[in-house]
């Protein structure tokens, strides 16, 4: 069973360098961002996630709501495995698809095909799986012969079709997404939304961060409200 269980998760970002002391005074009274704290070694740290505990079960569609710096993206990165929590436990089961930065690993001098293969490899796919997926991904992008050209020749709209097509080509148990992805011109965008929706629907768990309550209400059954790195409210819709 896919699940995400977090218990007392804490994430602190250390501030290094000579400026850390004055920095502390500067940020101390600001309204955005995590709260400042001191760690065991008396260093100034930004507490990005403060003692988060929650359980996410199969079928859950979780929306993370909060203002800038409330910890939404940090939490997503922790779930994606980038940051290991400073303390607390995180227990996850199921394959994870991270849509946090789908352009990761792309290379503007490489061709579209090469880029597709590169992103797929980074996702852990073997060469046979890549060969199998390639025609489907290529077809979806509608880029045709352009895929044999270096990425730098693409317009920015065309450019985004490539990672989007790859990211939505592989199904996963847990999908992490920071704001709703939308790509392409009007016609392509419709097709892309349908494909994204299909991928998200097939996922067992979705964790989606957004500023927009409307978006989360439309797509989620639970809303986690984050404030200054703390989980202040869980709404079940």
């Amino acid at each position, binding site marked *: 069973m896919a699940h995400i269980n977090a218990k007392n998760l804490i994430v*602190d*970002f*250390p501030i*290094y360098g000579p400026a850390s002391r004055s920095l502390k005074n500067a940020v101390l009274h600001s309204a955005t961002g995590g709260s400042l704290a001191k760690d065991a070694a008396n260093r100034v740290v930004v507490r990005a996630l403060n003692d988060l505990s929650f359980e996410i079960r199969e079928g859950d569609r979780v929306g993370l709501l909060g203002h800038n710096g409330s910890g939404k993206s940090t939490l997503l*990165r922790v779930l*994606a*495995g*980038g*940051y*290991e*929590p400073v303390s607390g*436990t*995180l*227990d*996850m*089961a199921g394959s*994870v698809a*991270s849509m*946090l*930065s789908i352009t*990761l*690993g792309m*290379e503007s*001098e*490489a061709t579209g095909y090469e880029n597709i293969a*590169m992103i797929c*490899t*980074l996702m*852990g796919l*073997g*060469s046979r799986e890549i060969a199998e997926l390639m025609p489907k991904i290529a077809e979806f992008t509608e880029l045709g012969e352009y895929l044999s050209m270096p990425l730098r020749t693409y317009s920015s709209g065309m450019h985004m079709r490539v990672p989007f097509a790859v990211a939505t080509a592989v199904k996963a148990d847990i999908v992490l997404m920071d704001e709703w992805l939308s790509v392409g011109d009007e016609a392509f965008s419709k097709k892309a939304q349908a494909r994204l929706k299909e991928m998200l629907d097939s996922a067992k768990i979705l964790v989606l961060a957004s500023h927009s309550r409307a978006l989360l209400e439309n797509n989620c059954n639970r809303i986690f409200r984050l404030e200054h790195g703390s989980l202040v409210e869980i709404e079940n819709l």
Partner: protein
Amino acid sequence: MSTQATSPLFKALNDIASGFRLHKIWTMLGWQDVKQRYRRSVIGPWWLTISTGVMVAGMGPLYGRLFGQPTAGYVSFVAASLITWQLISSIITDSCQVFIAAEGHIKQTRLPLSIYVYRVVWRNLIIFGHNLTIMIPVFILMPFAIDISMLLALAGLLLLLVNSVWMGLMFGILCARFRDIPQIITSFLQIAFFLTPVFWKPEMLGKHQWVAQINPLFHMVEIIRNPLLGKSAPLFSWTVVIGITVIGSLVSLRLFSRYRPRVAYWL
């Protein structure tokens, strides 16, 4: 996946082992690095070979004369020395950047950190392969004896690669945390090039040969360079390098198991 119950040492070892198994990823990243540097260049990475070749052709005869060495033997010595030194020194300099350069990947994905070390080692091995071809014209123009003991160069290379893994982990961690260390190491390596018997021989020091013998970089050079020229490396050099491998690996493993989860926060 659970973050509890397993010891930091186990997680560190697991990172190193599972990272190695993801060879599809790190070989791709390593190739990508080489390709990216030479995209749109006609001869690509062979530029490295050419620049090393030019250096050999220029320095060989000149320093051969300065040091009063027979030109033929000295040129092949310089060729083997330079390509070995370039491998070692660029592995060390690149080690400083393993994690810094992979910031995007590290912060967003759960890939083992060791893959970025293997990537750097692989990239340098590719470049070394290109550089190695210099030995062919050198051999044709100035033949030296071919010998079965040349295979020992492979053993030396393998030993160096093991060393580059611990160096990548250790320097990668230290440099991610303390951003002055890369500068220190770079300037240290510049002077080390002259202090290490790369284009001169320890015998030239007369009774001061100990200066070369206490230099660990010298021994690392010896175990690859000498077999490349069909000579065996002194047993002492092998012993020193094996010693460094063991101690370096242990220290590095300790550092890695302690600070592995912190690296993402330092970037």
